[in-house]
């Protein structure tokens, strides 16, 4: 697939938006395609990716983990080392520079885990853009540290109480803002979903992950059996997989949130679960829907995977069998965080911990001369409160109590 703008991927994708938003998306498509053909734009973006985001990120051989797992060599792509702690910044830099080029002065964004919001707030501070981030009230509670960072960068964080008060509702609210503000505002969507051209645009900006990995594979002559990524909306996965989509190998594996179980509202597995064809948030894809087409509640321990839909290109690749999907439970993700912390000195964010858990299972089943690469899309500092509460409850709570008491004096 060489075209950068596709609109549809098989049955999935499209631009199902009310007419008010149409001019904004039409303009975005034209301006983005134009920018991608501009040498100046690309070199400005490359420079920012290097000097501000800290690219390229390392591909690390997880030697200890490999030994313990006793199978294929495990490599980890350390996206979490980029500025602001996750892959999100690749897309944010691309879109923010594009917004500047289009003469927009204000940026709006949705965020779930807060990583996309933090990256957006940071880049807006750097580029001198006004920034408003919509975030569900439930997510604000579980990812409080990221709210603090966004506000420190000067962004306005608007709590969203509608619906389930999570990521999908933050998307709704951002779309509503944009419908009235697009003249001077760019909606910086954080995953490879939404109405076209977002799925194409976000993939292209995230494909830097896969391109770096591809170079390393060639240089180190690795025999790679599989690439493993977590899939919320799908931006880290599609960017990581991108250079390999049209080849037969390696296997491409997406880890979805298995949550607490298979019941309604207990997980967010669209591909390895029961996603149904629908049209939500401006695109056609597989969503978790009830029998009347209402969007169902979801759950994941990781706010970033807690979303009822999947990006259209990944849905298509899943249906075609090019990408395999697997579900990883909350508890397995927590185990993976501890495993890689102890053996590799790395704290995975809870989202990529799902990919880590899937890789742990797979590595043991493969021979030692094969390699698998896990995308650690983010690092885990943002999850301190969730991890500490889950793993070391008593000490953590007594610390919190003493912190509150100490400050009241």
């Amino acid at each position: 697939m060489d075209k950068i703008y596709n609109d549809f991927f098989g049955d999935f994708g499209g631009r199902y938006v009310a007419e008010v938003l149409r001019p904004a998306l039409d303009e975005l498509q034209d301006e983005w395609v134009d920018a991608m053909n501009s040498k100046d734009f690309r070199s400005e973006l490359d420079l920012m990716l290097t000097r501000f985001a800290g690219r390229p990120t390392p591909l690390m051989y997880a030697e200890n983990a490999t030994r313990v797992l006793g199978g294929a060599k495990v490599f980890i792509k350390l996206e979490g080392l980029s500025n602001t702690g996750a892959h999100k910044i690749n897309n944010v830099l691309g879109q923010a520079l594009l917004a500047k080029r289009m003469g927009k002065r204000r940026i709006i964004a949705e965020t779930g885990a807060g990583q996309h919001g933090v990256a957006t707030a940071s880049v807006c501070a750097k580029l001198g853009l006004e920034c408003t981030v919509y975030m569900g009230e439930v997510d604000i509670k579980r990812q409080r540290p990221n709210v603090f960072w966004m506000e420190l960068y000067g962004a306005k964080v608007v709590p969203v109480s509608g619906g389930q008060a999570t990521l999908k509702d933050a998307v709704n609210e951002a779309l509503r803002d944009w419908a009235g503000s697009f003249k001077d505002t760019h909606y910086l969507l954080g995953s490879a979903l939404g109405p076209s051209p977002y799925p194409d645009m976000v993939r292209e900006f995230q494909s830097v992950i896969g391109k770096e990995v591809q170079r390393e594979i060639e240089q180190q002559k690795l025999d790679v059996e599989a690439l493993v990524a977590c899939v919320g909306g799908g931006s880290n996965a599609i960017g990581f997989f991108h250079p390999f989509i049209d080849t037969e190998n390696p296997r491409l594996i997406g880890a979805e949130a298995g949550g607490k179980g298979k019941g309604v509202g207990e997980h967010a597995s669209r591909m390895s679960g029961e996603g149904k064809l629908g049209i939500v948030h401006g695109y056609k894809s597989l969503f978790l829907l009830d029998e009347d087409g209402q969007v169902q509640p979801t759950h994941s321990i990781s706010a970033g995977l807690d979303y009822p839909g999947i990006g259209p290109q990944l849905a298509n690749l899943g249906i075609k069998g090019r990408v395999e999907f697997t579900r990883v439970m909350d508890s397995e993700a927590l185990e993976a965080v501890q495993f890689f912390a102890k053996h590799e000195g790395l704290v995975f964010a809870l989202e990529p911990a799902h990919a880590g858990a899937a890789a742990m299972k797979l590595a043991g089943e493969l021979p030692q001369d094969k390699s698998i690469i896990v995308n650690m899309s983010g690092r885990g500092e943002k999850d301190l409160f969730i991890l500490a509460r889950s793993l070391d409850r008593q000490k953590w709570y007594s610390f919190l109590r003493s912190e509150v008491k100490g400050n009241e004096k």
Partner: protein
Amino acid sequence: MKNRIMAHMVAFYPSREKSLETARALIDGGCTYLEVQFPFSDPTADGPYIQEACKQALEKGFKISGGFELIGDIRTFSNIPIFIMCYANTIFYYGIEQFLECCVSGQVQGLIVPDLPVDYDEGLFEKSECRGLEPVPVIAQSTKPDRLDMILKGRSEFVYAAIRKGITGSFTDIGEENIQFLTKVDSFGKKILAGFGISEKHQIEAISSWIHAAVVGTAFIKEIIHSGKASIYNVIKKKIQSLI
């Protein structure tokens, strides 16, 4: 001349029975058209009042089948032309053809589905027209001239014009920009249903020479919220009478 109103209501808000009462009040109060919104979990084109109404309606057990039954109940006492407003997923997931068949049986006149625009409509326009239903395209002030041509060259008798940027519910001051827009749309010879932010008679009067009917929705929901102990029938009927 009296103002024509397309009165918007959310099926099953604030409950099934009270939404039937709302419909009765709107009809008795003199609306020309009834627009019945089928609630959706993610109403991206709606402001806070309609969002909340949709959320409550779903909690009250709204189902698509129940929506059509409600319309059936309205039909027992009125022949008012009814339009269903819903989001793409409601009709798409149900099956467009099946949904349209239910519209035909329920003597629904037409459909307003904002996120199925003419070029991403999943066949809605053609499939509706061949069943004698009116699919109503929605246009906005921001719609570019060539696109306006493309949308309005279709056969539809009506066009729904959103006269403010953004979403439903906030107040629209009728100004020069609105008038220019309506004049342009009027040249296509369609019946213009103009809405988004209309709650007062003076707004309707400012645009009444360009439009066929004014769409009023959020204003009625506010009446329901503030009705307290008063009967919903009375407050709604009084409100619509004040607009006509």
